[in-house]
């Protein structure tokens, strides 16, 4: 037993090596220099203070959605609808910011309050969209994966309609999004040029810490686990199962909505068509990679954010597509899960020989 636990890092190390190997093969197949590509990614992620801060900027929404997803995973749900929930958070936050715009300019409302209320609106939006998935599941019997996927499309369509319709730029609607908000309504960043907002990082860290404590140490978390592992028994044990399912959707939606609101107020300062930027799906990958436990989610999410930001320069410097980061992330998840399966098999066999 004890030596099999010692084997775990070995298997995980092997998984990382294999993932790197496969990505290298992909690079070789496209006749690109692998080493240069990796060096480029590393440099792109930590080469200068400004890119390092960009990594943190990407880390925030990723960590927020991952925190939320860990809650829905605890109750045994695949919240694919997370993308739509981010988008909805962004839409609600934008709507709030747009309506505070005049008041903030005339001094009728304190900009800080306006920002805070808009962020709250974003959280409400995400929760609303998530609970819709939950309601479809509990009352309509629609599997959360199908419901979520459908609502993702609806959210995207609504977003586009707003950007090209009611909220379009004066004159010409454009893919670059709505009119930027007044500077006063931006989440405070460390300096004018940077998009790095320390408050956002704090929010993300608080989120993951709260989720960790929630799952590990509270009655609520234990009941969520019970519902996730055996709803029938959980019900007989006196847990109101559907309420807990809804609550987990709400929590996840709140965090996804917060991610959307942060993107709007501190990164883009406006609503753009692809506002969720795929962070939802990436959060699903991070959750799988950390085996659905909150303990190591923060560093792994940071690593994924670094890969993403680091590969932005690839098209320019090496004429490579920046989706290379995605390839690396995907293979990593695949191999880590594979390695865990292999370890289990190995343990069984080892037991036989011993």
């Amino acid at each position, binding site marked *: *037993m004890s030596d099999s636990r010692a084997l775990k890092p070995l298997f995980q190390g092997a998984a990382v090596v294999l993932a790197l190997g496969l990505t290298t093969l992909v690079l070789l197949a496209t006749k690109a220099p692998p080493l240069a590509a990796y060096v480029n990614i590393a440099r792109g992620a930590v080469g200068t203070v400004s890119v390092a801060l960009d990594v943190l900027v990407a880390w925030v929404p990723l960590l927020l959605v991952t925190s939320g997803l860990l809650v829905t995973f605890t109750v045994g749900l695949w919240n694919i609808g997370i993308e739509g929930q981010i988008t909805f958070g962004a839409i609600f936050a934008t709507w709030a910011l747009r309506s505070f715009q005049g008041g903030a300019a005339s001094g009728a409302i304190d900009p800080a309050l306006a920002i805070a209320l808009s962020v709250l609106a974003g959280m409400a939006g995400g929760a609303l969209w998530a609970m819709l998935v939950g309601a479809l599941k509990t009352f309509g019997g629609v599997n959360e994966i199908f419901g979520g996927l459908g609502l993702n499309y609806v959210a995207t369509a609504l977003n586009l309609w707003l950007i090209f319709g009611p909220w379009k730029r004066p004159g010409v609607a454009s893919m670059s999004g709505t009119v930027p908000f007044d500077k006063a309504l931006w989440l405070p960043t460390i300096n004018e040029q940077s998009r790095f907002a320390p408050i956002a990082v704090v929010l993300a860290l608080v989120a993951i810490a709260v989720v960790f404590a929630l799952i590990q*140490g509270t009655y609520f978390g234990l009941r969520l686990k019970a519902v996730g592992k*055996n709803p029938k028994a959980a019900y*007989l044990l006196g847990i109101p199962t559907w309420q807990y399912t809804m609550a987990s959707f709400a929590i996840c939606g709140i965090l996804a909505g917060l991610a959307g609101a942060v993107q709007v107020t501190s990164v883009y300062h406006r609503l753009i068509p692809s506002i969720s930027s795929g962070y939802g799906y990436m959060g699903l990958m991070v959750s799988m990679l950390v085996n659905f436990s909150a303990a190591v989610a923060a560093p792994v999410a940071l690593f994924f954010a670094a890969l993403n930001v680091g590969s932005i320069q690839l098209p320019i410097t090496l004429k490579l597509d920046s989706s290379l980061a995605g390839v690396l992330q995907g293979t990593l998840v695949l191999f880590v899960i594979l390695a865990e399966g292999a370890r289990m098999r190995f343990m069984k066999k080892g*037991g036989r020989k011993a």
Partner: protein
Amino acid sequence: MLIELRDICKTFGPVRANAGISLAVPPASVLGILGENGAGKSTLMKILSGFQPPDSGSIIIDGEAATIRSPADALARGIGMLHQDPLDFPPLRLIDDLILGSRGPLRPDRKKAAREFRELAVRFDFDLDHEAYVDSLTVGERQQLEILRLLWLGARALILDEPTTGISLPQKQKLFATIRLLADEGMTVLFVSHKLEDVESLCDRAVVLRQGALVGSSEPPFDTKRLVELMFGKEVPQTPRYKIPCGETVLAARGLCLESLRLQIKDLDLEVYAGEVVGLAGMEGSGQAIFLASCAGLERAVAGSVCLDETDMTSRSHHDFKREGVAYLPAARLEEGLVPGLSLEDHFILAEGKRGLFIDRREAEREAVSRIASYNIKGRPDSPVESLSGGNQQRALLALLRDKLSLILVEHPTRGLDIESTIYIWSKLKERCSQGTAIVFISSDLDEILQYSDRVLVFFAGRVSPPLSAEDLGVEELGRLIGGKGWERFEASATAETAEASHV
């Protein structure tokens, strides 16, 4: 098939489940494997059937060393196992469940399989419809299905792990006849049980496991006393039955009508009094389970009412019943009663239903340790429930009961428990009765029904007998009623009653 086990060892952390067991089972015989809860019986059987690898030791089949890596491997060699807790039953039709396990061409011949299934069913006199859904079957019927499936897949050795727990007497008799027939045809049968009388009436030889070791073996005629001593290392005295004076009405069912896919119960009237034990007897699936569920708010009545302590609870939710002090313990432990993946301690915390935010783990552990001790569970606070032996899972389920209850509804309270634990559990339940809790339980063990109930309700295909005094009821009479014989007298008295009523 001659099966030999040599020096099988298996440990789970600190627990030595099998400590060097050697055993030979000749063909055309039934070997009984006895042992108290947690003795290591299931572990040994799972090793033989490929569900778990042994740490060391070897399996020899017909003189050849065999490595069995998986259940499919075992089955390919002709070893099939019937599990103590039926593992997984997907919502499939019987025939699909049958075909699913076969290694054949991609498109199985459904018609042929159905024909063979029917032939097998007829041969053993099993009343199974191959187009029915598996999840609509009772435990006994699932077991019959499993046997047919294993035979159909060509098993030449059958392992039955506690097959008589949870099935009715007629089903048991049918099962035993089937086993005998198969053994006489050359089948090697391993029969795991801790019911001495089952082993005594069926087996050609019996071995006893205790704490992972083989401590003795015996051949007919069996010496019951010696076997008990081998199992427990001591004698186990039977407690005499005693009666607790009954209090006021706790549960009242009036004109209750219930319906399920296969049967209807009409106009059921029953009053249960504080401190009383009511046993529900009948073949599995005769209506007792839905009646019990309806008393817990888990099954909607078509008509009639259920009252608790004079509050009408008809069509209220199970959680409302729970708040009124009703506890319901299901038969399927790992499917409905416990949460696999969570520890004993977690279960106690959940069952307590405390409000608050943070769990005080130290307090919880103390509580868990004391509950584990007072219910004699072999396990630690952090043991996942699925790692407990079957009997210990049942104890855990009982240990989850809250302290103050007005009514306990139990399906098969001692299913899977050895004699010692059975006596122990009932002493616990009776203790509750003396505090004023009423108990309604289902059992397919006639002796248990007669030994522990004050009154008995017999169910047969949706018909329900009036409450019968357990003291005046003999085993034979109860058996006949369960089998659907001798019901005329109730009708006679019922018509007499109505006649009387119309007179007035």
